[in-house]
């Protein structure tokens, strides 16, 4: 069984994003980029399935400009067997990424695609679901547990009221939530080895996919800031303020 894991390189989660002064976009120049944390969890899930003898190959894929190859190197260092880069300098929106993924799926024929539930930059939470639709596969988003079966996979997913278990026919698309696993760190020897591994390059044209953005970002800005608050010195003062000033209790 082959597993495809789409990975995205994003602004590191420890860094607070800022809008460019002219509002034309997000200021990313010179800032630390990392693999989307949910994609690290997706890779970890795929690698563990392989280690358990339930999968034979883990293929990582990233779409974007030359820089996304960095993310693929990390994926290789973590244990992906192969890496595919869909090279594009266009702004790739979720529908375009899903179409690229669909085209790659039709070539690679994986049994399972494991995506992150959301990329922590654009926070869209769309790509996996869109891919499942395009392939007419079943989907299980927000996975907290994955159990492979014969021709099927059971997925415990986090919901607004607790959890539920879905049984999907294979092939299927799963998107990962935070508590699926704790990703490993890449070891230095593996990072070195990953540098030498080939990355296969594809283009949207070769895949027959149009990636023109549909949505247009007119401007970005930082949201209104909360006015600074105060520190109170005792529980009594706090309660007095909440009653008399804020009038919330």
């Amino acid at each position, binding site marked *: 069984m082959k597993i495809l894991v789409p990975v995205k390189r994003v602004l590191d989660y420890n860094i607070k994003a800022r809008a460019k002064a002219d509002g034309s976009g997000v200021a990313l120049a010179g800032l630390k980029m990392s693999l989307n944390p949910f994609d690290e969890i997706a890779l970890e899930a795929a690698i563990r399935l392989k280690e358990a003898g339930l999968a034979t190959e883990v293929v990582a894929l990233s779409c974007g400009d030359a820089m996304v190859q960095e993310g693929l190197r990390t994926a290789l260092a973590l244990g992906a067997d192969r890496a595919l880069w869909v090279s594009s300098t266009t702004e790739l929106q979720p529908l375009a990424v899903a179409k690229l993924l669909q085209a790659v799926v039709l070539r690679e024929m994986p049994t399972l695609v494991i995506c992150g539930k959301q990329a922590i930059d654009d*926070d869209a939470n769309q790509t*996996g679901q869109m891919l499942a639709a395009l392939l007419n596969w079943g989907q299980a988003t927000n996975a907290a547990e994955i159990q492979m079966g014969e021709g099927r996979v059971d997925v415990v997913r986090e919901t607004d009221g607790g*959890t*539920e278990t879905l049984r999907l026919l294979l092939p299927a698309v799963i998107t990962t939530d935070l508590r699926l696993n704790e990703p490993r760190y890449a070891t230095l020897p593996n990072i070195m080895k990953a540098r030498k591994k080939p990355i296969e390059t594809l283009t949207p044209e070769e895949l027959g996919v149009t990636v023109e953005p549909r949505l247009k970002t007119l401007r*970005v800005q930082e949201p209104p800031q909360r006015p600074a608050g105060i*520190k109170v010195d005792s529980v009594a003062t706090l309660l007095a303020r909440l009653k008399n000033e804020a009038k919330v209790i």
Partner: protein
Amino acid sequence: MENRILLVTELGPDGHLKSSIRSLLAAAKALKGDTDVLIWGGDTTSALVEAQHLPGIHRVLNGSGATLAEGLAEMLCALVRPLARQYTHILTAATAIGKNWMPRLAALEDVAMISDVVGVESSDTFIRPIYAGSIWATVCCPESLKLMTVRTTAFPGVEGERTEPVPVENLPCPAAMPLSTRISVHTHAQEGRPSLENARVVVSGGRGLGSAEHYEALLGPLAEELNAALGASRAAVDLGYAPNDVQVGQTGKVVAPDLYIAIGISGAIQHLAGMQTSRVIVAINKDPDAPIFAVADYGLVGDLNLLVPELTAALQK
């Protein structure tokens, strides 16, 4: 061209309409246009009458039947898709369910969709948070069918009832599909507490609580006094202090109660993303430099093990 708007609702576990529909109505009002409401579920009997009396709507579409009981994305798409092109806008709340099915519908209809709308500028221009809410993007959607999930905390609900019920159109219940089936559900009951989404007051605990026992023993009585829902940081959920469905933040739930009390929570950007639009924020933390104090209206520096029982006791008086 006149907008035609479809609002897709959710029912609560009790079979009644969720109050999020009122926020969807507010978003629809900002868009302006004829508005229909679609309800769906295994049995929509109670919700149907409620929906028919919602203000400002034209009609109710009713999808009721066994294959809709589980809220599977595949089934919801089968229900909504045949109607989709009758509308210019389809809105649903940005809940786990909404986020699950709407992108699927978007891809089936080959349209881009907009997640987590917090503002409507015009019928094709919307505001949505990105980067854990650090940035707001104003996005223009030129698609002829605009699909969006709406962050209900950003739209104060439309009040009121109509006296005459609007007409109902019953929709065919989609046939079962083998792609996915639900085999079990584990609901976590907030015993007698209001739900996180609707509570006027939220008491949230973080790693500083130290254990599941402390989380419950310290926060339970305080929540009781304030008739509050309990929330948690990711760290508290990961450590097993609290169940997953009460995680507040970028990748958990977004809440905006009148009063949010953060206890033993440092205030990571991912947590702030889920609570910073609360009306009043209180933070209790032993570290005077914790980032949570930057968003707190009232900060109390000290040991939560002493301060929380003191606060609860003072409220009991």
